[in-house]
């Protein structure tokens, strides 16, 4: 996909984003104008115009860069909810007798809350009428039952988060947003490495990905996993009550 940057003053962009009646302008300003005819030909989905959940509990992530930001926001909400629940467990100290490990999990909770709140504030500032709502986590009791199940769930979430950002970077058209995603993904990778080492020391960047059958977490080219939003949403959906609709997200 050709990269475009906004070619009008930011104030106009923000007005376009904030004005629900000015969608055509918004598309033009964000460089998506070229995609409009394709969208019309493909039959524009009515859901494209709203990201508020409908009566069936579906959350539309939206399109373009804002859709990708909502996608990241959804994943950070899930991670923050999980670690908040872990640290709040009444038997947290029993499950994790090591003070170092408790500090690690508390740190990660704080980082994920920071990421969640960052996206909430940043999307609100840029596209208040397109931000997705707070999601309802659906964490099975088994995921919080033991040290092993907590770390296993954490590993899945962290490796999935890294793969999600690695796959979404190229879908962004705004260099500032790409830079911000880059600032977060390496922290997620640090989490993933530490969680893997807590499960088995030395597995920070080796062993099965646990996401794609047969794929090592770091492949023969020395590359980490990258997944499309569709792949990530399929894996994350069981942990979220609302149905996430990523069908309007960019794919290239």
């Amino acid at each position, binding site marked *: *996909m*050709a*990269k*475009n*940057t*906004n*070619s009008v003053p*930011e104030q106009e962009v923000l007005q376009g984003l904030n004005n629900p009646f000015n969608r055509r302008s918004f598309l033009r300003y964000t*460089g998506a104008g070229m995609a409009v005819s394709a969208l019309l030909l493909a039959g524009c989905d009515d859901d494209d115009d709203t990201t508020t959940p409908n009566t069936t509990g579906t959350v539309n992530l939206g399109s373009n860069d804002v859709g990708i930001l909502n996608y990241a926001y959804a994943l950070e909400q899930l991670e923050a909810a999980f670690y*908040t629940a872990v640290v709040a467990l009444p038997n947290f100290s029993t499950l994790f007798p090591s003070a*170092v490990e408790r500090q*690690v999990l508390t*740190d990660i*909770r*704080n*980082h994920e*809350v*920071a*990421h*969640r*709140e*960052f996206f909430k504030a940043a999307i609100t*500032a840029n596209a208040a009428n397109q931000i997705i709502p707070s999601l309802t986590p659906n964490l099975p009791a088994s995921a919080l039952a033991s040290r092993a199940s907590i770390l296993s769930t954490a590993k899945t979430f962290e490796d999935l988060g*890294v793969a999600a*950002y*690695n*796959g979404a*970077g*190229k879908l962004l*058209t705004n*260099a*500032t947003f*790409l*830079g*911000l995603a*880059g*600032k*977060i*993904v*390496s*922290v*997620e*990778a*640090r*989490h*993933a*490495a*530490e969680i893997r*080492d807590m499960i088995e*020391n*030395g597995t*920070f*960047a080796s062993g099965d990905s646990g996401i794609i059958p047969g794929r090592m977490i*770091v492949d*023969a*080219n*020395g*590359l*980490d996993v*990258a997944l499309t939003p569709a792949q990530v949403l399929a894996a994350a959906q069981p942990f979220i009550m609302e149905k996430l609709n990523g069908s309007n997200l960019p794919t290239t």
Partner: protein
Amino acid sequence: MNIFNILKEVEKVDPEIFDRLDPRRAVFKHFGGFGKKLAAAAVPIAFGSMLNKAYGQTAMPSVRDVLEFALKLENLEYFFYRRAADTNIFANAAGKTAFTVIRDHEEDHVNFLRTAISGMGGAAPTTYTDANFDWTAKGTLGNATFTNYPTMLAVAQAFEDTGVRAYKGAAPALMSNDGVLQAALQIHSVEARHAAHLRRMRRDMANGVATNKPWITMKDRGGLPAAFQGIYDGEEVTTQAGVNIVGTFGGIAIDANAASEAFDEPLTVAQVNSIVAPFIK
């Protein structure tokens, strides 16, 4: 002459013209005021200096330049780990295994980048050997790099944390090539995994840096000498894109330390080159 029409024409050829002029639009805003004040004859001069600024000093490095830059860093890491993994100064077998794993990844990165550069055509990628690197860091480390275990781990942490920041800084320059951008991101997160493990190893070793975490707190060097401060300067920010990360959310307090840890920061090519310069002959 209508400057805005000219900019529009340039934009057809270079859609990033406005960002080149100034990503924050500040220069452009000033230019609006300029136009009113300057005599018509002076306008082309001001315009020329704007374009010079846009294409002269602030132009993004090419995709090829970024890949060559990454190739140099990956070679530095590969030859370091190749020597390190061959030593017998490890405190335990797990440490040696970890260095072997990382060495192999860095070799994979070197080969991958060489293939990517070759695939772009033009001159062959630069070839490096161990002799290209100075493991004494211009004498600063003496012969400790491969004889003193804590020093060896410290150098490894320095390289990994630098590598993460280097790829992060370069990523936006790769936006014109989706395939290369994604691969760079996939390498970037592997370097972050390495960095986390090295920092953990230094935390856990006997007489290690007990406060060292897998992530970077403020601009703390994690026990590295002051000469390495450049690797961590700038990591202490607690505001992202105008959003203050510090606060209390749902009863969970995010202090400045957590706010800085939650986001890694980029380095420019010049900053990275300055950091690794002592290791390059």
